[in-house]
């Protein structure tokens, strides 16, 4: 009789291993999850990444410093300007460049615009993950307007490559401030409508409340960052704790939730969009006249040494570590993407939950595979 009893945790005949991905509607890119299911319950999950591995770190290390900026566009393609900022800061630190004040404000404005665009993607795809298709399209409608604005400034919609070591590639076009303000007015109104449509929806609430809880201790031990960390009640925002560029001169609240569940992470992101709008307005108002581009050495050969920058990308801590040996090319460019870390938490988070919850948890981590695989 005992021989028939399966050991606890061992696979039984009712187990089923399914592959979610690499082609699957909910994996947001080429991610593969090998999931062992017991009926509707997840017994274990092993993410398989690397389908998008391009060796970007090595490619950047094989080129002069300033040429590595366009590669960072391809890291987190939903928020390319934030990646541009991270590498630019690292290069500025290793080469000792100064950034003019106006450029700092322009950078912050661009990054926050991109943060809104990125969070809108999260909003839309998360709604689609939970099953609400209409909210998805509404979010993309607003994002489209925002991308038009980015296009008017930088000439590209996704891979902007406009924040460079030493400043910003160009100043704003004429009448840009008014256009951005007009967008923000409409956007905040739309955001309230989305709140009514999705946040207030009881079905959305029961699907996300109490699902995928990350305790603050676990979030820290795993190195979670950004909205995932702040959704767990840890008040760490690098724009505050290690301020850079014009952030020390802007006022904004850091949204914080203590529940640590999917809903908390969602609400943090939605509130961050409002705060980003606030920061953009302040930037436009307080931006001083001046240069958008600092003084730059013609040949860039930083002294041997190391430098790193930590920035708050929409997904969390995006940091770049540069190692120089005094030549024109870096020895090592290390990109620490928040999505990579968040995805590594997934197996622990989804153990024992239902398939549908697994999708909700994966969506709430908001990973971008371009950054995971690099």
């Amino acid at each position, binding site marked *: 009789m005992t021989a028939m009893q399966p050991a606890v945790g061992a696979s039984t005949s009712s187990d089923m291993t399914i592959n979610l991905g690499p082609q699957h509607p909910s994996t947001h890119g080429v991610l593969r999850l090998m999931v062992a299911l017991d009926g509707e319950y997840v017994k274990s999950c092993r993410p398989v990444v690397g389908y998008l591995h391009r060796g970007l770190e090595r490619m950047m290390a094989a080129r002069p410093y300033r040429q590595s900026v366009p590669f960072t*566009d391809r890291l987190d393609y939903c928020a390319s300007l934030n990646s541009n900022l991270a590498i630019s800061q690292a290069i500025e630190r290793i080469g000792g460049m100064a950034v003019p004040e106006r450029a700092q404000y322009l950078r912050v404005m661009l990054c926050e615009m991109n943060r809104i665009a990125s969070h809108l993607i999260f909003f839309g795809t998360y709604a689609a993950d939970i099953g609400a298709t209409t909210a998805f399209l509404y979010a993309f409608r607003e994002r489209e307007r925002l991308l038009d604005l980015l296009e008017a400034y930088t*000439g590209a919609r996704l891979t902007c490559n406009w924040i460079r070591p030493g400043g910003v590639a160009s100043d704003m076009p004429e009448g840009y401030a008014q256009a951005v303000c007009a967008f923000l007015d409409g956007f905040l109104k739309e955001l309230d409508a989305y709140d009514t449509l999705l946040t207030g929806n*009881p079905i959305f609430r029961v699907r996300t409340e109490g699902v995928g809880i990350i305790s603050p201790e676990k979030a820290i031990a795993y190195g979670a960052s950004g909205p995932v960390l702040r959704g767990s009640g840890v008040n760490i925002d690098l724009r505050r704790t290690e301020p850079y560029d014009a952030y020390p001169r802007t006022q904004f609240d850091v949204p914080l939730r203590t529940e640590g569940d999917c809903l908390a992470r969602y609400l943090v992101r939605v509130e961050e969009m409002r705060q980003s709008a606030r920061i953009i307005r302040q930037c436009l108002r307080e931006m001083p006249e001046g240069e958008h581009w600092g003084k730059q050495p013609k040949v860039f050969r930083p002294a041997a040494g190391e430098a790193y920058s930590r920035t708050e990308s929409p997904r969390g801590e995006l940091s770049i570590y540069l190692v120089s040996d005094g030549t024109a090319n870096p020895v090592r460019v290390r990109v620490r993407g928040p999505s990579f870390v968040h995805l590594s938490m997934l197996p622990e988070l989804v153990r024992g939950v239902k398939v549908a919850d697994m999708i909700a948890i994966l969506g709430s981590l908001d990973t971008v595979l371009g950054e995971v695989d690099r």
Partner: protein
Amino acid sequence: MRLIVSFAQGFVSILKGMAITFLNLVGRRKITLQYPYQRPNVSPRWRGIFYLPYNDEAGRINCVGCTLCAQACPTGVITMTKMGAGKHASVNAFTMDLGRCMFCNLCIEACPFDAIHMSTRFELASVDRGVSLLTIDKLAQGGADAVERTKRTIEAALEQEAAAKAAAAAAKAQAAAGAQAAEGADA
């Protein structure tokens, strides 16, 4: 009681959501762009396909073949061969392999002669890899004709320069000969 209240709240919030979708159904302007028939107005800063602007006054494309753009390119898209020399220099081959291009704008910023631009043309997809290899005939504003005219302008300028140089040399030689003669006379 609590159950009924929360149920009623949930019911009302679903109705609110339905009101929003209904308002979008009847009231909002639709945002679809029927693409092949309607085309978006992209911003003038759009980073689309490249071209080498043709300077009508000078009768040539601006490029002098200094390879600054090729050096600035992170992916080695640009190759060129120089034509002419000194002040009268241009390129007779300028090839961009768009299959590797990131449209990062670095080449345009690197150019001190305003010789390479990006246009607002954005439909770059094709079923043929060969199409992404842009030769100078496709890149120059005005096509092969512009390239031909540039070549003629440069050649003419070079000839002129050579002639001027020859004339100067001849004059110099003459002057030298004259001086020699004078010297000889002196002697």
